[in-house]
């Protein structure tokens, strides 16, 4: 085994250059001031303190709220779909899962533009409503449009892990539960759902991560006034050029994500302990 160790060197180098060093740089930027002048380091906590300002706190809260709601809707709509697919015959399952992933073959920007067309004040939906004699509904640049965009983009990432855990479940466990007197609802609650929890956790973590850090969807479907964490970070780096503050926000976001994953892990462990 020992002589294979050398083979890991490229991977370690790759990790160092593209993952570890950038993270260290973000940490460095977050705790210094003076932009890109790396020669003189002025350590400061002012970047982090700035986040405490009311505006920024509200952006964080808004992002968290949207992330939680999006994740919840993805779960509530994705689980039944994953479940139905998992009950289909083997061949049909592959087709259905492919159908779920087909949208992801199309560039996300394109899909988001499509939603803009659908949702805008004189878009397709409002035209159709007009035909039915219903007054146009304002949908673009609201929480609704942003969430629609996020849910549609992230849904496959919820369905696939849940479906995987449901599919690999031993069918005879369901028969065993029914044999022991559990009706279909009890069988679902006590056996099927419990055994699919690892898949649910994977799905929830993935969707939540993407929802809380996305910036293209809120930018396009929420409009310029609509600011989430992702947009805040983007503007700090690209339009304002305050890399230090941008890094500080990124760092906080990373910590929030780590905490969220930690929390999910805890739920998983608690489930395991109940065995």
């Amino acid at each position, binding site marked *: 085994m020992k002589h294979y160790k050398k083979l890991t060197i490229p991977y370690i180098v790759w990790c160092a250059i593209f993952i570890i060093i950038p993270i260290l740089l973000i940490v460095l930027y977050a705790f210094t001031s003076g932009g890109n002048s790396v020669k003189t380091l002025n350590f400061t906590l002012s970047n982090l303190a700035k986040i405490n300002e009311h505006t920024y706190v509200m952006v964080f809260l808004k992002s968290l709220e949207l992330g939680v709601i999006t994740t919840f809707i993805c779960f509530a709509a994705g689980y039944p779909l994953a479940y139905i697919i998992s009950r289909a015959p083997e061949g049909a399952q592959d087709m259905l899962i492919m159908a779920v992933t087909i949208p992801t073959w199309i560039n996300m920007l394109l899909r988001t533009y499509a939603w803009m067309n659908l949702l805008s004040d004189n878009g397709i939906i409002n035209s159709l409503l007009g035909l039915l004699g219903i007054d146009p509904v304002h949908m673009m640049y609201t929480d609704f449009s942003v969430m629609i965009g996020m849910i549609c983009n992230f849904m496959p990432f919820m369905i696939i892990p849940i479906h995987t855990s449901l599919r690999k479940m031993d069918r*005879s466990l369901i*028969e065993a*539960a*029914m044999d022991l*007197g559990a009706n279909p609802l009890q069988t679902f609650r006590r*056996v099927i759902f419990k055994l699919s929890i690892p898949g649910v956790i994977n799905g929830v973590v993935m969707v939540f991560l993407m929802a809380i850090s996305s910036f293209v969807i809120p930018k396009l479907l929420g409009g310029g006034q609509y600011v989430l964490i992702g947009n805040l970070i983007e503007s700090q780096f690209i339009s304002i050029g305050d890399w230090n503050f941008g890094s500080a926000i990124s760092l906080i976001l990373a910590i929030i994500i780590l905490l969220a994953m930690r929390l999910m892990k805890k739920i998983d462990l608690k489930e395991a302990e109940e065995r």
Partner: protein
Amino acid sequence: MEKIIELKNLTKNYGDQQVLRGINLDIYQNEFLTLLGPSGCGKTTTLRIIAGFEEPSGGQVLFDGVDVSKVPAYKREVNTVFQKYSLFPHMNVFENVAFGLRIKKVDESFITTRVNRMLQMVGLADFGPRDVNLLSGGQQQRVAIARALVNEPKVLLLDEPLGALDAKLRRDMQVELKKMQQEVGITFIFVTHDQEEALTMSDTVVVINEGTIQQIGRPIDIYNEPENRFVAGFIGESNIIDGIMKKDLLVHFDGVDFECVDKGFPENEPVEVVLRPEDIDIVKPEDGKLTGQVTSVTFKGVHYNVMVKTKYRDYMINTTDYWEVGTPVGLTLTPDDIHVMWKTPY
């Protein structure tokens, strides 16, 4: 004894394949009944229909005289021990066994007492908090039995439950299962393809082949008086020979008349004769009714398996004596050793 389950003209089709072709069977209280047959014969399908996992294509399943063909599995008073045990991997041993009682929402203290008593009965008294995924096959098997029996079903269904165990553990479990059945006093319906298992444990053996019942009887009857070629060939080894029933108590085969104990056949009826390998005696050529030469000898542990070539055919004989290959020998049979069957059409 009281009838507890009746199967009436049960059929099952998968597509255009007919798996069960009219099964009629009465199962009595307190009986250890085994469905025995080769894989794909329909024995497991029969069990699954009784459990309620499959609906029959035709015919009826009666529990205590009531048709339950349309009653879902969770409302039937039977419990199953599955082939792969199918223990719930997200629950410990105690919770697995308690599952059925929790569904019934009975008192917690009652659950604790009952589950512990069950675990004790299957010899896993202190195993309650253990993770089922870390148990050995034999232990999982016991948990599965306890999980089913804790609900005090009227009938326990066992689907090849010993298949995954090694030979020694298997024999131990056979004895234990039989003991448990007598202890709890309920009907066991046991599915297996292992004829030795069936003969060891059962009160009644039902031999099934190609979706049809071949014979129902006590193990000793099934072995000694098989009704047809299939049963004779499937249960133990045997020499099956075409013969003619000259008259009551006299059968003719291989050019010789033999006295036998069978009667009730028409005169000169073509029949099949079953000779168990352990029933044929090897003697000196001049003392035998049939003569031949030893062509092979295989050591089998308790006995030797000797092949003797006669003018008409090869005979398989099991004996504790050693016979050199090439020795000329004679074969004799007592009337008790000969079993005559009606000729089967296939």
